[in-house]
């Protein structure tokens, strides 16, 4: 930058005089000593300069670990090398080959975990959105106690994840848990006490906790989106004879589209990557039915001490999420543009 400025004093434009006003114009030698930054560059440069600390921190906190993770995916980092990563031999694409060889046990387990996670995510995001949107629409009308109900609805979102999920883990215990006490002892719905933390029901338990934890966020965002819809629209629709359901379909939902676009994406990413909920519910080894991909990758690295293989799986997951996010944004933006047009 300095060199450019020194070499191109003519490019400084009208603002260049500001710094040197009232002084004789310095010769080429003086320009080399005190280089001046062209005003236009200064104008463009300032925001970047101010952003620099944030960019550096972002680099440090997010990008560097990601790059190291990707680097690890190409290394054979097992227990023999974890004390000295530099010595780990290059594995080339071996770690990736192992992860995507779906006929071998490791790849097969990863694929099954991937499908479980997809199903879990679709159901969880769908339910969170439905419950959150329904609650937000009901809360639009002014009635007594609305404030208290709104605050109450947000409680699961405000609670620390660990405290909330460990409480669910206690409630889901077969012999002494509250869930079975209500289902079996009080309502008599099941003959024998079902297990929730092991076996196939674990999926239902995980989904329940996930929706319980996630819907208040959907509620919050949709509620905020609803504030922006002009009341006149509903009044006009009512005069035209539209019922509640038609108003929701024709006014509320289309108006919420931009909000929903972001909401669904965020919920998808959070749910797909959720580690805390299954880890706190099931501990080190999740039952097969609830073996989400984040837990699976954790096990593939920390439990088998094969961090190279775990990193390769993480890199694949990152790639998948990037592709899905890009495709989603592309499709939804195009859809919105065409409907706007």
């Amino acid at each position: 930058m300095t060199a450019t400025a020194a070499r191109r004093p003519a490019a400084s434009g009208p603002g260049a005089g500001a710094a040197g006003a009232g002084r004789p114009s310095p010769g080429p030698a003086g320009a080399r000593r005190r280089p001046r930054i062209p005003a236009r560059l200064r104008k463009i440069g300032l925001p970047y300069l101010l952003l620099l600390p944030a960019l550096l921190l972002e680099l440090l906190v997010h990008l560097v670990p990601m790059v190291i993770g990707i680097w690890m995916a190409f290394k054979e980092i097992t227990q023999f090398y974890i004390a000295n990563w530099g010595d780990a031999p290059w594995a080339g694409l071996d770690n990736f080959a192992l992860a995507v060889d779906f006929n071998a046990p490791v790849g097969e387990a990863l694929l099954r975990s991937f499908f479980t996670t997809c199903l879990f995510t679709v159901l969880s995001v769908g339910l969170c959105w439905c419950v959150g949107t329904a609650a937000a629409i009901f809360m639009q009308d002014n009635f007594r106690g609305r404030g208290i109900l709104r605050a109450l609805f947000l409680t699961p979102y405000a609670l620390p994840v660990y405290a909330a999920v460990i409480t669910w883990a206690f409630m889901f215990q077969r012999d002494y848990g509250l869930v079975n006490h209500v289902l079996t002892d009080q309502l008599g719905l099941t003959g024998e006490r079902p297990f929730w933390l092991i076996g196939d029901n674990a999926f239902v338990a995980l989904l329940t906790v996930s929706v319980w934890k996630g819907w208040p966020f959907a509620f919050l965002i949709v509620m905020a989106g609803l504030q922006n819809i002009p009341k006149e629209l509903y009044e006009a629709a009512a005069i035209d004879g539209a019922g509640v359901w038609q108003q929701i379909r024709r006014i509320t939902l289309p108006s919420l589209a931009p909000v929903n676009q972001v909401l669904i994406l965020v919920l998808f990413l959070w749910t797909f990557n959720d580690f805390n909920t299954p880890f706190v519910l099931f501990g080190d080894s999740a039952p097969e039915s609830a073996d989400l991909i984040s837990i699976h990758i954790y096990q593939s690295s920390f439990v088998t001490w094969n961090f190279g293989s775990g990193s390769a799986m993480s890199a694949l997951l990152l790639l998948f999420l990037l592709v899905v996010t890009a495709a989603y944004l592309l499709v939804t933006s195009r859809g919105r543009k065409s409907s706007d047009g």
Partner: protein
Amino acid sequence: MRRFRAACMTATVTALATVVAGCGGGTSTSGDGGADKPKELVYWASNQGPSIEADKKILTPRLKKFEQETGIKVKLEVVPWSDLLNRILAATTSGQGPDVLNIGNTWSSSLQATGALLPWDDKNFDKIGGRDRFVDSAVGSTGAEGQDPAAVPLYSLAYALYYNKAMFEEAGIDKPPATWDEMVSVGKKLSKDGKWALGAEGSNLSNNIHQVFVLGQQHGADFFDAEGKPDFTSDGAVAAVKQYVDFMAKDKITAPGNAEYAQNQSLQDFAKGKTAMVLWQAAASTFKSHGMADDDFGVAPVPVASGTPGTGEQVNSMVAGINIAVFKNSKNLDGATKFVEFMTSDTEQVHLNKTYGSIPPVKAAQQDKAFDRPDTAVLRDTLLESAAPLPQVPNESQFETAVGTAVKELFADAAAGRAITDEAVKTRLAKAEQQMPKQ
């Protein structure tokens, strides 16, 4: 304008300086990393007592005594079992670990392979009084054969059969079972009216491994071949796992609810009189903390297939225990070695093992009268005569997870009422074997 620009520059430079300082800060002021000062040590203790707090109360006076003797201050952190291995792995990876730490003795070989722990060659052993001070079986669980141990035995433990005397009397049983056939027949008498004979921790992977390893020995299976390769699907291994899960699936002497136990709930059930027997290591102090008196429960050797406990197929316990290790990159190796010497001294060994209900791996300390009590005598004799160490191979901790999970899943199947066939057991074990890292 110039002043504004100067202000911006100052702000940017300050921010950058903070970032750079932040990066550098980690190395010089590591929160829980090894102590830099020569007169200070960081020690990670494992949770041996009824709670973390209890452990702190037990250990702090000992550390004070060490400080008085040597002038070295020890910063103690008691790490729960659920976190210990991950914390050690993180410390190994980052090089920011404690100076001295406790490890489960079964992890010795796995951690030895990382090269993060100080090898205990003869020179180092001499600093703490020599290798001969320790019981052979305990030293056998400190690392792979043919290599210098990665740690020094600290507390030794063995499995025993704990039984509820009142429940036995009520069911008209006069002595604890000595063979598995007796266990099943006695168990059927005890399992009625919402009460069950034998407790299990079906979702606790390590405990599953300890139980099936011993049954495996009794069936002549080792889980690893002579070259250290996994061999989980041998007939003996399948029979061992099936026998253990069948206590719930076929014999119905273990409550189905135990399939999801992983937090020592079976000990609570025992203390509450809901379960008549558990197979456990040094459980006496836990039972007492749950309100049982010394006379309420009896202790006997773990049953065998037939005959009496001994070596080979008569093995009835793993060599359980805790080892103490030194982080190789500790900046205070000398102090760390001194601390190990202190913790393994005869006096401390008697005191600590008495408090925790474990057996000292130090021969001289074992002679103390405190270890002649009926419950500790069973543990001591088992250790001396009929305990075998878990496989000392680098992949031991992966084995615990893979096979432990297979047993957990089989328990889940059994609890759901599915039949546990040889085929089902073999399929799960084959899957576990495939998950083991290639060698």
